[in-house]
Every structure is written in structure tokens, then in C-alpha cells.
């Protein structure tokens, strides 16, 4: 048993070490309470729905979300819009379909099974419209950035005037959380930019938090069931481990050796 504790200690030290070495050049991000962190972490339904609103009204004019479908909006563990709401949301978008029997492409209202409509036809078109910078797809954006949700949350609020002596080209903005501090996206959020249906005040901070929560869900749509299953799995394993420990003690008591 003693050597097992020693092994466990090495485990912890080792991972502490490796995690620390990964985040060596970390900047201090803005902190907020994320409801989805922790053993029982769940998404805040309201935040997800508001976040979706911010995404559609603000981000989606440049940023695609190609891995999400409208049906996801009604699925368990997500924003959980009602099926009727999700259908209405889908129908509010024009989707290009086809070719039909005449060989023509046509547009029709979106269905639940459709993927989120993309703002641009292709990467080149997106670059052409944004001064050469491609607005990244947001489906897994949170997982694709070292700082994760804290980074995105901070970035959205990190626009400042550049420090004296720093000259910025046209279409380049100063952001204190961006890698290299230069970003090609202008500040998008301002107080009261969107009007929340649930009456929440749409401050920049609130919108940043909501849309980041939405992006977290977009990147990890099964996070809630992962946390629930994880807790059950660990409890189950712990109980089994204790039972096996006593069986082991019992079996080894037949010989005069300690385990």
C-alpha cells in the first residue's frame, strides 16, 4: 500500500509538472464563473440561448459554424430551444439546395437537419471580404485556443487604444489578449448591441460571457453527459476498488506477506 501511495504521488507531481510546462507563457486572462466547470458542471440554459442570439446577430455575419446543425439547438444538453422554436430558427435562414430535376440550384427555408448557413461561399470569399484575414470557423474555436473559454471571454473585452509608439496598419486593431496584440477583427461588442428577449441587460461583459458559453457548448456538445457519466464511472470504480481491496486483503491473509 505504501508503494502505491508513492506511485500516486509521482502521478500527481508528473502531471502537475507537464501541465505547468504547457502553460508556461500564460497571460492573466479575465476571470468569471463558468457554470460548466467542475464535477457537476452544466451549461446555463439562458446563457446558451442568449449566446446563440449574440452569435447569430453579431458573429455569424463573418464566422461560420460548419459542424453545427439547427437540430442541435433543440437537443438535450444544449440551448434546449423547443422543437418548434428550433424549426422556426431554421426556417428563418435561406438554404441553397439542389440541383433539382431541371439541374438548377434553388433556395428554400432551412430545416432542422441543415447545417448552420455559412456567411461566405468559401475561404477565398471570406478572405476577400475581410482584408485578407479569414474569420475562423467557430465550431471548435474554444478548444483550438490555448486559453480556452477564458481567452475568448477576455479577447472580446480586450480592445484598447494601442500603447504610445505602436503604429497599426489599416484594418488592424490592438487587443491586449491577442497573441502579438494585433488582431484583424474590430471590436464588435458595445453595451446594448443586442436586445435580449429575457430582459437581461446586454452589457459587453454579459454578451461576452453568453457567447463564450455558447461557443463552449458548440465545441463540446456532449459536455453535460460527459460530466454525469464521469461522476457515475468514478463512483462505481471507487466502490469496486474498495471491495477488491478487502478481497485482496482476505486472500493474502492466507500467507504471511503484506500487500
Amino acid at each position, binding site marked *: 500500500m505504501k508503494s502505491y501511495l508513492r506511485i500516486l504521488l509521482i502521478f500527481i507531481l508528473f502531471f502537475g509538472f*507537464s501541465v505547468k510546462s504547457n502553460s508556461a507563457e500564460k497571460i492573466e486572462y479575465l476571470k468569471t464563473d463558468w457554470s460548466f466547470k467542475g464535477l457537476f458542471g452544466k451549461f446555463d440554459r439562458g446563457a446558451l440561448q442568449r449566446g446563440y442570439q449574440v452569435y447569430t446577430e453579431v458573429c455569424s455575419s463573418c464566422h461560420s459554424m460548419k459542424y453545427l446543425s439547427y437540430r*442541435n439547438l433543440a437537443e438535450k444538453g444544449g440551448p434546449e430551444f423547443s422543437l418548434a422554436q428550433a424549426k422556426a430558427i431554421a426556417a428563418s435562414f435561406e438554404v441553397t439546395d439542389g440541383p433539382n430535376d431541371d439541374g438548377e440550384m434553388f433556395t428554400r427555408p432551412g430545416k432542422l437537419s441543415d447545417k448552420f448557413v455559412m456567411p461566405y461561399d468559401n475561404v477565398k470569399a471570406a478572405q476577400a471580404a475581410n482584408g485578407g484575414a479569414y474569420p475562423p470557423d467557430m465550431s471548435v474555436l474554444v478548444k483550438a485556443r490555448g486559453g480556452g473559454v477564458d481567452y475568448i471571454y477576455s479577447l472580446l473585452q480586450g480592445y484598447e487604444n494601442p500603447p504610445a509608439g505602436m503604429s497599426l496598419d489599416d484594418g488592424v486593431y490592438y487587443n491586449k489578449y491577442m497573441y502579438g496584440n494585433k488582431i484583424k477583427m474590430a471590436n464588435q461588442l458595445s453595451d446594448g448591441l443586442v436586445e435580449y428577449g429575457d430582459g437581461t441587460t446586454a452589457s459587453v461583459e454579459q454578451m461576452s460571457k453568453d457567447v463564450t458559453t455558447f461557443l463552449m457548448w458548440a465545441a463540446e456538445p456532449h459536455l453535460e453527459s*460527459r460530466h454525469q457519466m464521469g461522476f457515475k464511472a468514478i463512483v462505481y470504480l471507487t466502490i469496486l476498488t474498495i471491495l477488491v481491496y478487502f478481497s485482496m486483503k482476505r486472500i493474502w491473509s492466507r*500467507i504471511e*506477506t503484506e500487500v
Partner: protein
Amino acid sequence: MSDHEYTPKSKFGKWFNDRLPLLTLASHLTDYPTPKNLNYWWTFGGILTFCLITQIVTGLVLAMHYIAHADMAFDSVEHIMRDVNYGWLIRYIHANGASMFFLAVYIHIFRSLFYGSYKSPREVIWIIGIIIYLLMMAAAFLGYVLPWGQMSFWGATVITNLFSAIPLVGEGIVTWLWGGYSVDNPTLTRFFTLHYLIPFLILGLVVLHIWALHVPGNNNPVGIDIKKPSKDTVPFHPYIVIKDGFALLMFMIVFAFFVFYTPNILGHADNYIEANPLVTPAHIVPEWYLLPFYAILRSVPDKLLGVVAMLSAILILAALPWLDTSKIRSAVFRPLYRQFYWILVADVLILGYVGAMPAEGLYLLVARVATAYYFLHFLVVLPILGYKEKTLPVPLSITEPVLGGSPNLALAKNKEKLEVK
């Protein structure tokens, strides 16, 4: 293995066993006499078998949904994460399973180094183990390429480019490996094929590894040869089975924590960006378990020599049974070796740390010193130590060293101190 007489009880059993002695094998595995003083460091063999099977099973399921095509690989992984039933679970087990596999194999290897398990008569077990370790690294590297993220692509570019260091034919070999003039779709499809093949090669080698183990039997913390079966041994079942099972469950709790609560912490964020041949990531870093070797590679200014140093760092292990000249196996009775052992452990951890850092300034200097020391340990310290070191008296049997019959090592050591006085 042959000193085992077994006759099945049933008539059919006897008929079958005469034709294919599977029952004899099962009986051998059950009764296999195991030293009774094995500590928990010895449970990692079983844990590693579990890791291999887990990787194979989850890998099979993933392969049913994954598409090995440069334009579709990234999408198909997201499809697995989102739309395949429990696809996220299978993928996170597979991805974190690789890390857990390496964690366990490093403990297994360092256990062997501490207790001298590689020494005669166990050299063949050790060498097969080194081959398994090499194949594991190959499989892990190939697997990391499959999601076709930025680190996949650029990691593949960096590693395959190492072959260009070979004089004369290097460039040709790289083109041949790529199946073109850069890492692209042909590279991905062959990497997928090889990634699928290697685990089964490992499985075959594991069988040989265990077979070779069952000829001399397990080493033990005291490191002495023991009579089998005797008072010093217990049958594998139930004693070792239950103990390995207990240790495995503890391991699985750690494993589950990673899978369910921090599934991406061991991976690099850039791998969630789809591969883009036109954009190079700021830092190209391999997975944590390859970092010490990456540090060795980068610490040598010349490309070819760097590759040679990196390969030697692994292959030197195969020569270990002959580099270590000491007749005493266990570090418990080798006071000097014990200190050098821990220095080596620290050295490898330092190499891992600097491997994750940019190769410049102080980091580079530290990497060079640590690399030099790594080779010094195996090529100079170990051979000399065997002749110079004054070892402690070794007990005659596991039950012998201690009054009262407990083979507890702490007590054994105390008793030695008494004898020295």
C-alpha cells in the same frame, strides 16, 4: 514451463488437450509461481496489457467512422465527436489512452531499471520490451497525424523530414514516405494503414514478452534468484490476479478522471485547427511522452547527428544488460547506483521539460547538458559502477532476511543495518 504436469479431468478435456494443449497453458498461467514480495511497481505489466486492449478495441470502433482522406479526416473526427453514439467517449478514451499507455510504460521501464530486471537471464524479455516501446512510439506518432489538425500535419512534416538527414538517399526516402512532394493525402492513407497494423504487431510481441518472462520467472524487489515453487512464491491466481486487479482499478480511476473531466489537457490546442499547409504553428511540439527525445534531437546543432543522437538514446537501452556490469540486480543493495538512478530520472524529466520549451538560450544549454549526462549515465557511469561499487550483502531468499518471516523491504534494510553494526 516444461516442469508442469497437468491432466484435464474430463474425457473431452483430455481428448482436446492431447491435440491442442490449451488447458495445459491455462493451468500454467494459473499456477505460475510468482515471487510473493512483488510490490505495486510490478502491477504495471498487467496495466499495460489493459491499455493495449483498450486502444485496440476503441481504435476498431473509431476506424469504423473515421475517413482517412485529407479533405474529410478532420470533419469525420468532428462527426465522431458529435453524431456517433458515445463517439466522444470512445475518442477521448483512445486519445487519453495513448497518454496513459505511455505513463504506464515509463513506470514499467523505470521499475526495470531500478530493480535490474533487464539483467541475465532476462535480456531477451528486455530487448523485446524495447522493440515494443519503439513500436508504441511509432503507433502514437502515426495516430496523432490522423485527426489532420495543425499539429498532426506539422508534426508529420517535422518527423518525416528527419529522414532527409540520411546522406545521399535522404531526400528520396522522404519523397517515398510522403508518396509525393509534401505531407498530403497519400501520406495520410498510409499512416492510417500503418497505425492500424502496429498494435497487432505489438500484441504479438507482448505474447513473446510474457512467454520469455515465464521461462526464468519474475524478478523481484530483492533481485535474487529464487526457487520455484517454494515458500518464496505464490501461485499467480488468485494472489497476483487480485493484486493486479486492485492496482488496475486505481489506475482506471486516474484514467477516468482524464477522460471525463480534462480530456484535452494532454493534447495541443492547435490540433483542433484543421491542417493548413500554408500556415506554420508558432511552436511545433510533439506529445508529452516524446518530449525527452525531442529535446535530445534539438540539442545537437547538426541535423544528421541530432537524429543519430535521438535514435541512440533509445537503442542504447537495448545494450543495457551488457553496459551494466554489476552482478547485483536490485538497487536496494546498490547504494551508489541508487543515487545515479534518481539522477537519471531527474535528467529525463528535465529533458522532457526543455523539450516543450523553445530551443534557445538557457533551455538549449540545459538540454545539451542533460543530453550529455543521459549518455554519460549509460556509457560511463554504469560500466564503471559495476566494478567500483561496494554493494550491500544480499539475502539468500525472500523469507530469509527478516525475523518473523515478513519480506518487507524496510525491515530487511533495518536488519542489514543491524548486521553492519
